């Protein structure tokens, strides 16, 4: 019987430091067939596994055209992530997936796209941005609003220049605070403080939001205030997750499972289960 | 002797709890001052027990000591049962004896192998011994585990067991598991003989002091949980009469009170007094082992306590098997009784010697008075007296050696200091 709980093996091909506690890992499945078969959409996630410690759900941060290589961007916050941080280039890691439902790129075709990310929330959206970059003609205006606590907490900084060059796009960067002595040419304030300068009009737009839950709630509310319908907003939820395949129950929200009905949800579907502001 | 000598140990190692030795010896070899100082903070069990319920006593007093919780539990239970005039079943008495014996095995092995053997073999600890004498260390661990496992099987847990209650047990262990234990006990007999050999062969100081030895004693069995209080100096009393004959006094350098027989002197309790007084009740294999050891009993060298423990180990295994063989495994344990006011006292043999508990209970089953005298409170006074006679025999040795010998004497008693300052 096929066993979805048993991890496959992947090599760590590359490690890029993003911030003081965040790295991006480039993984390559060990098994050639799996490598070929491994297809995903941005927003899906995998379960990374280390024997003796456990598993963690991690979003795929690359875009699907990345041919057999998988990027994951991981923040060191606990047991598994810490153990992953102790691995080196060339080491092996357990991997299962991809799981879940990613961003609705098909529904987004021919529409303007508003991407709002906070902190680590940019990880699952990076694939979307790069996908749009590579398939520019399929989508309308692209607007990215990215906020982090400080400039040092921003991830994928090395790609911003590329993103800025994307045709018909706008990018806003903002931070909560700038530590003394750090140079910062962009905005200071919450992501929503970028709204007044926003180019996207709700009429033919779709919004992809990912970040800490409290930020997403607030952003969603502000989007509704400026005319977005709750079915135009998609958010990627995080919940505790033990199996990734809809069996352990931990990620339930209302009657949905974040792991298989999400993690990307249409806001209208889950609005009422999120703790009120 | 030409110099003044000071012997000081601030925190005696390889005993339970916090005690110290301070000895000043004058130029002419006279002991100016000698203290076995117990500075373990007292916990005032006798005070806070007041106001608690009779059925909590076994659970609470268990926490007097992590090494001999079983002894406190059984003594407390028996004292309460005496107050309430409850007579537990034969099976309960047998299981309690087995429980107590298992605690003796565990504690005696701990004392012999872990706490004292390193001295006798020239190591600082059993950890240090592990490399050179793995077989001995493993034997010690094996025997200790056997004792603990029996306690756990009957009591649910080795440290602070939970099943013994007033009148019986909450659960009777399964026969299957007991049979498995019996098998292990049989196998352990060899280990026990090796232990006797080991402790007959190691060199111990040649020292003798003929103090009064007291033990609980019963003509029909090797007494642990029940019996009369008997001594080498003619004491022969019931447990209810304890306070008529034995009193305690506070000394300034010790948080443990000192005991003595009224109108007489300090006394010794523990494995050596037990073997001395109850030699006839030992199993025949234990008697044979004692005879083969080359030591004669009664014996008044406190260092022979180790050997006494080893001999008891042989007996404990024999008696455990005997008890297992006669256990009916009936579910008879929870008996009904009425709570009424009364006073009850009980003495038992804890691994380190005689233990006394007594309680005053009111009509609602609430404790109104508690009196507890653990073995080390009985012995503390006597240890000091031993040291007084022992130290002068050591004066030709360097200070380090004298210090070590003094510690060894104390460890021969295997004091449980937390108990003594309950």
């Amino acid at each position: 019987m096929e066993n979805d709980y048993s991890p496959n093996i992947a090599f760590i091909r590359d490690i890029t430091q993003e911030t003081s506690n965040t790295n991006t890992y480039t993984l390559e499945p060990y098994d050639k067939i799996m490598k070929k078969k491994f297809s995903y959409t941005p927003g899906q996630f995998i379960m990374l596994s280390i024997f003796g410690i456990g598993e963690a759900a991690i979003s795929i941060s690359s875009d699907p055209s990345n041919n057999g290589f998988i990027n994951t961007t991981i923040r060191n916050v606990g047991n598994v992530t810490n153990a992953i941080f102790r691995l080196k280039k060339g080491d092996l890691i357990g991997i299962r997936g991809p799981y879940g439902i990613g961003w609705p790129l098909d529904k987004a075709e021919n529409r303007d796209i508003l991407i709002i990310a906070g902190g680590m929330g940019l990880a699952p959206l990076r694939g979307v941005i790069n996908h749009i970059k590579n398939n520019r003609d399929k989508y309308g205006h692209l607007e990215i609003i990215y906020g982090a606590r400080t400039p040092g907490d921003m991830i994928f900084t090395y790609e911003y220049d590329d993103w800025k060059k994307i045709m018909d796009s706008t990018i806003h960067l903002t931070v909560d605070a700038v530590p003394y002595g750090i140079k910062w040419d962009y905005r200071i304030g919450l992501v929503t403080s970028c709204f007044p300068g926003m180019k996207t009009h709700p009429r033919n737009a779709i919004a992809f939001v990912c970040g800490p839950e409290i930020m997403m709630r607030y952003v969603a509310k502000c989007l509704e205030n400026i005319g977005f319908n709750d079915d135009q907003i998609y958010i990627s939820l995080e919940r505790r997750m033990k199996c990734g395949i809809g069996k352990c129950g931990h990620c339930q929200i209302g009657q949905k499972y974040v792991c298989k009905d999400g993690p990307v949800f249409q806001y209208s579907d889950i609005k009422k289960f999120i703790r009120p502001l | 002797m030409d110099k003044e000598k000071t012997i000081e140990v601030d925190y005696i190692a390889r005993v339970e709890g916090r005690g110290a030795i301070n000895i000043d010896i004058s130029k002419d070899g006279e002991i100016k001052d000698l203290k076995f100082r117990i500075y373990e903070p007292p916990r005032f069990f006798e005070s806070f027990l007041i106001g608690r319920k009779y059925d909590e006593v076994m659970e609470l007093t268990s926490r007097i000591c992590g090494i001999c919780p079983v002894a406190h539990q059984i003594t407390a239970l028996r004292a309460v049962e005496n107050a309430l005039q409850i007579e537990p079943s034969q099976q309960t008495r047998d299981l309690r004896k087995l429980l107590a014996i298992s605690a003796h095995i565990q504690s005696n092995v701990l004392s012999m192998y872990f706490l004292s053997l390193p001295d006798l073999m020239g190591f600082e600890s059993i950890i240090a011994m592990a490399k050179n004498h793995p077989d001995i260390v493993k034997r010690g661990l094996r025997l200790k585990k056997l004792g603990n496992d029996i306690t756990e099987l009957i009591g649910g847990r080795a440290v602070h067991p939970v099943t013994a209650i007033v009148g019986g047990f909450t659960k009777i262990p399964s026969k299957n598991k007991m049979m498995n234990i019996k098998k292990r006990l049989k196998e352990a007999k060899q280990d026990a003989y090796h232990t006797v050999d080991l402790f007959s062969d190691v060199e111990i100081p040649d020292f003798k002091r003929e103090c009064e030895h007291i033990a609980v004693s019963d003509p029909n069995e090797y007494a642990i949980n029940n019996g009369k209080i008997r001594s080498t100096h003619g004491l022969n009393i019931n447990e209810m009469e304890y306070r008529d004959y034995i009193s305690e006094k506070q000394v300034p350098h010790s948080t443990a009170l000192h005991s003595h027989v009224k109108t007489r002197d300090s006394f010794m309790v523990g494995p050596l007094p037990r073997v001395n007084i109850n030699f006839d009740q030992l199993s025949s294999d234990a008697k044979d082992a004692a005879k083969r050891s080359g030591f004669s009993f009664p014996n008044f060298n406190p260092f022979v306590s180790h050997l006494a423990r080893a001999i008891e180990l042989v007996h404990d295994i024999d008696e455990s098997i005997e008890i297992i063989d006669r256990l009916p495994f009936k579910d008879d344990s929870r008996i009904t009784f009425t709570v009424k006011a009364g006073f009850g006292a009980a003495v038992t043999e804890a691994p380190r010697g005689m233990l006394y508990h007594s309680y005053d209970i009111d009509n609602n089953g609430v404790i109104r008075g508690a009196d507890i005298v653990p073995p080390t409170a009985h012995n503390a006074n006597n240890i000091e007296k031993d040291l007084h006679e022992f130290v002068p025999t050591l004066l030709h040795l360097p200070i380090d050696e004298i210090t070590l010998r003094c510690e060894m004497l104390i460890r021969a008693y295997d004091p449980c200091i937390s108990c003594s300052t309950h």
Partner: protein
Amino acid sequence: MKQSTDFFLLEKNGIDILVKKFLEEHKVFGPIKPGHDSTFDEIKSPKELHLDYISTVLPPKKFFHPPTENLFSFELIENTEWTYKETLHDEKTVLIGVHPCDVHAILRLDRFFSEDFRDPYYLSRRENTIIVALNCIEPSEYCFCESMGTGPFLEMGYDLLLTDIGKKYLLETGTYDGKKLLDGLKLEKADKKDLYEKKKLLEQAKKKFKRHVNTDGLSALLDDDTHDWDIWTKLAENGYPGKSFPCLSCGSCSLVCPTCYCYDVYDVIDLSLKKGVRKRELDSCQLLEYAEVALGGNFRRDRRERIRHWLMCKFGMAAGGDKSGCVGCGRCIRICPSKIDITEVARIIRGE
């Protein structure tokens, strides 16, 4: 797969013959004590079986989805080489004496564990188990299966089905596997009269229920976000005087529930750090840690959020049921030290 049904009659002591037959090639499990607090356990001889039980502490889910189990073991051989071994169980098993509510619960778990992704641990056990169900003539004071459409008599989900029709048992076959189990036994055929007797008993049993739930629209009511948080605060923190005490968050309700499946996964490794197992263990949404995430986050920190979640799951669609995750077995009512009664809560939600 449903087969044509055969009907037999079995003397009361005929059960012994059945059990003996089962024991020839199967492990047999069934209730081992009479009364409410029975447990399903292994039966080595017919004497141990107690079909006169009322309910068990843990439901039969413990066989398919045990409180703790190993998923796989791993061992490091050399620096970079390791072995890895799955722990699947496929012993041939017969479960005897399962009540209708519990059979329905198993059916729900079957669906839950095989939809989307298949759970090989549950399914390999399940596929090797034959269920001999037992209809309920005498519902207990806690039961409300009738309201949930899961009892007191069974129409599906069994391999064999027993009904106590007075002096004898009526024995019905449900599947080919069940029928095959009876091969070689000389059994008396039942006739119309016996089937009529069964029908009569069913009608009588239906009237004996003391607890009822009206499930109509309940799920939608719970789904409604404008719904009164006051109810949850009372359940969790104040209690309903005379009815229930505040919730203890002890998790007992979900652990005894035959349709609760939530589990935690963790690794255990030995001191040498060279070999270990990945395990899973039943978990409960009533526990604080259940929704805890890294850096101190928690998605359901308040007791009221947790109890609300449980009831949404039980009366909602999350638990593998279409209409309800509850099958009306009454276990959570009986086990709750705070006397929280799911049927009462349903009434409160409906504003009755």
